[in-house]
């Protein structure tokens, strides 16, 4: 139930609905998509990345002098959690072929493929295996499988979505492996939505020119992650999972190769040394940095740890000046602020409308363009709906879905959305959802090639922590694909590499060197990173924790 003060606007949405429905059913485009120039204009004027204080120059490390997102720059210009002199590097706790840092979809896929290629694997993860953004993806996974589609068309869509900045070799890997990944997942027992012939149900995603979105209701990420987790757990003899033990620094050897990592047991507060011939960073993204104080769709652990580890060891960052805001985050009710409303809602026909019930943008522009136009509607044009807590949003007219696809379509294909709103007595089959852009995805990250190698020997990266494949804006359904494609590739490459590598004497000199760089750049800060977990304790409580000792955000 929406409050009384929203009712007038809701009536206008209902009033314009029949006309909008008619156009939608006619097969015409419901709104004209933007041209290149129009996209450019709305992005530069309204996308949060383009605001004056969104970025700053980073003063140390491999990307010194480049403009990157402010919160990321702050995190990278922080101290290590440890003093290297405290470590006895002759005491190795675990020895393995491949160390996978991160227990999301990319990490799980990497571990499985590394095992298949003969490696012994350790997965070290901050929370539980499967506690990751991978689990939360709702809408789907792209793969060009239909006869009217092709990997080449997928390539073109991904490139246009990324504003033509994507690294070509990575996009090729993404689109060419996509059908293979669908096959692999199906063989592992993932239940995709299918038609009566057994072909996959496919939908149109934002910025896509073909129906290419494969889904598993609106639990696509969960359906995949549950299976990958189950499969990892089937191989305890080859894949050891160490939970609640985030990596806090990489280990290196005297020859400048990466040689494993130092883990931190969150419960016993011990530091643990893992020596590994190949190390894969698959730690995911940075939503919990709450960039520009945005609410986020991201997992509790999405704190950019892998960027810090890799950067301190000398790996390059790519496109860390760009942030993805998902157009449709929940604005009301307050309890689910920032909650992801899957793009599938729009792919199934829901339209964004302003407080007068007017459709003001093509519903499936690339995400950054769509988000920027929502912000324009709420700011410059003043046609947003304002809540009692002073937040603003536009309506996402979900009842259209059932009018287009038939009664029951929402409960059948969007059960998570229906369930979520039903908890707050809002029936999205009858009433729209109030939405505003929410911090969603790290477009850039550690630079890799199509074998997931960083420029540091023995160091690989896969999934959201890596950068390049999406350019400066990712399309819907390409992240689930990304972590599968590159997780698998990283696993294979790391396992093969492990067969060749000879590690030398272990060292943490790179941490000392980084600390020296901080001093030389005259950076004075009490921040430490990786931050590991955000802290949501109130300032009042913190002020009373007189003897509590905080290391960064952790008590």
């Amino acid at each position: 139930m929406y409050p009384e003060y929203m009712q007038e606007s809701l009536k206008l949405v209902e009033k314009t609905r029949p006309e909008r429905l008619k156009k939608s059913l006619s097969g015409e485009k419901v709104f004209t998509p933007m041209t290149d120039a129009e996209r450019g204009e709305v992005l530069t004027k309204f996308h949060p990345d383009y605001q004056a204080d969104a970025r700053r120059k980073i003063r140390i490390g491999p990307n010194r002098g480049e403009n990157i997102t402010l919160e990321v720059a702050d995190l990278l210009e922080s101290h290590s959690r440890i003093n290297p002199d405290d470590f006895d590097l002759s005491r190795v706790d675990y020895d393995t072929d491949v160390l996978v840092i991160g227990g999301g979809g990319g990490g799980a896929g990497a571990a499985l493929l590394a095992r298949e290629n003969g490696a012994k694997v350790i997965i070290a993860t901050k929370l539980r295996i499967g506690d990751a953004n991978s689990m939360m993806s709702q809408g789907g996974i792209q793969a060009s499988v239909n006869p009217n589609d092709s990997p080449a068309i997928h390539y073109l869509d991904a490139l246009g979505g990324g504003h033509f900045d994507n690294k070509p070799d990575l996009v090729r890997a993404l689109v060419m492996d996509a059908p293979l990944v669908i096959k692999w997942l199906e063989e592992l027992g993932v239940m995709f939505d299918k038609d009566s012939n057994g072909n996959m149900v496919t939908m149109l995603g934002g910025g896509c020119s073909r129906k290419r979105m494969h889904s598993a209701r609106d639990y696509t990420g969960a359906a995949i992650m549950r299976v990958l987790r189950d499969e990892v757990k089937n191989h305890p003899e080859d894949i050891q999972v160490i939970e609640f033990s985030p990596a806090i620094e990489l280990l290196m050897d005297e020859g400048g190769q990466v040689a494993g990592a130092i883990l931190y047991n969150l419960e016993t507060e011990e530091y643990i040394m893992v020596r590994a011939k190949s190390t894969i960073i698959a730690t995911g993204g940075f939503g919990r940095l709450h960039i520009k104080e945005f609410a986020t769709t991201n997992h509790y652990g999405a704190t950019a740890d892998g960027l810090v580890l890799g950067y301190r060891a000398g790996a390059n960052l790519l496109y860390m000046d760009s942030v993805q805001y998902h157009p449709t985050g929940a604005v009301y009710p307050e309890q689910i602020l920032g909650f992801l409303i899957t793009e599938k809602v729009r792919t199934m026909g829901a339209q964004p409308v302003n407080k007068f019930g007017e459709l003001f943008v093509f519903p499936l522009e690339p995400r950054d363009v769509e988000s920027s136009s929502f912000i324009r509607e709420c700011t410059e044009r003043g046609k947003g709906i304002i809540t009692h807590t002073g937040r603003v949003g536009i309506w996402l007219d979900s009842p259209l879905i059932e009018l287009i696809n038939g009664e029951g379509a929402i409960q059948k294909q969007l059960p998570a959305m229906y369930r979520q709103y039903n908890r707050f007595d809002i029936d999205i089959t009858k009433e729209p959802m109030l939405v505003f852009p929410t911090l969603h995805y790290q477009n850039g990250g550690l630079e890799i090639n199509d074998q997931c190698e960083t420029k540091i020997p023995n160091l690989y990266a896969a999934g959201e922590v890596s950068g390049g494949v999406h350019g400066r804006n990712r399309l819907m359904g390409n992240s689930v694909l990304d972590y599968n494609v590159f997780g698998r590739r990283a696993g294979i490459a790391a396992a093969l590499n492990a067969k060749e590598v000879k590690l030398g004497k272990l060292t943490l000199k790179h941490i000392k060197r980084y600390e020296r760089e901080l001093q030389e750049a005259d950076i004075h800060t009490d921040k430490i990173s990786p931050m590991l977990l955000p802290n949501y304790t109130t300032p009042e409580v913190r002020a009373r924790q007189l003897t509590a000792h905080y290391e960064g955000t952790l008590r």
Partner: protein
Amino acid sequence: MEEKTPSPKAKMISLYIMGKRYEVPEGSTIMGALEYAGYQLKRGCGCREGFCGACATVYRTTDDYKIKTGLACQTVVEPNMYLAQIPFFPANKALYDLDELEPSISTFQEIYPELFRCVSCNTCTKACPQDLEVMDYIQALIRGDIAQAADLSFDCIMCGLCAARCPAEIVQYNVAVLARRLYGKYLSKKGEYLESRLKEIKEHKYDKEIEEFMHMDKESIKKKYYVRDIEKM
């Protein structure tokens, strides 16, 4: 900054966390209340959106003897609630090679024999924060109906509350993931499109076209992009 903490002006209510009394803002989720009270969560907190099952919670309200269950990130607090989390539950998971299993009742008899101890008490269903018909999918499996079990358990987030409450000590969510995997791999109908696309890729049908795209200058590829036809919704 955190989205789940209501504004400080909100009306305060009291409740009990692990038996201790705290004042928290009305309208908070259980997770928000724990954090407001000063807890730094390590276990028992995951996606914060109801998809990962990390924050399984048991609670009771003062005037009721019943133990209730929910997700801490999804359940709004009530006055005088008694809250506790289940940070870990030592549930049994069978190890198996999916390639060697048959999609039949005998598989379950062999690797999850306790499944057949179900006493139809429906406690699992009552415990499910997703409102799934848990007992019905267990009963479907006992009848050998893997397809129905896969369908009914589809929205399972594996929080473990069913298993924590089951008097027959069945681990429903692990049984269910096996049912879905068997269905997805063996029982679901397979289409032709995927196989023919895989064949084309193997035969290098698209290599040349993509290679050309990779080497085009930005203006030419832009042109190609903006004139491409878009399939109707």
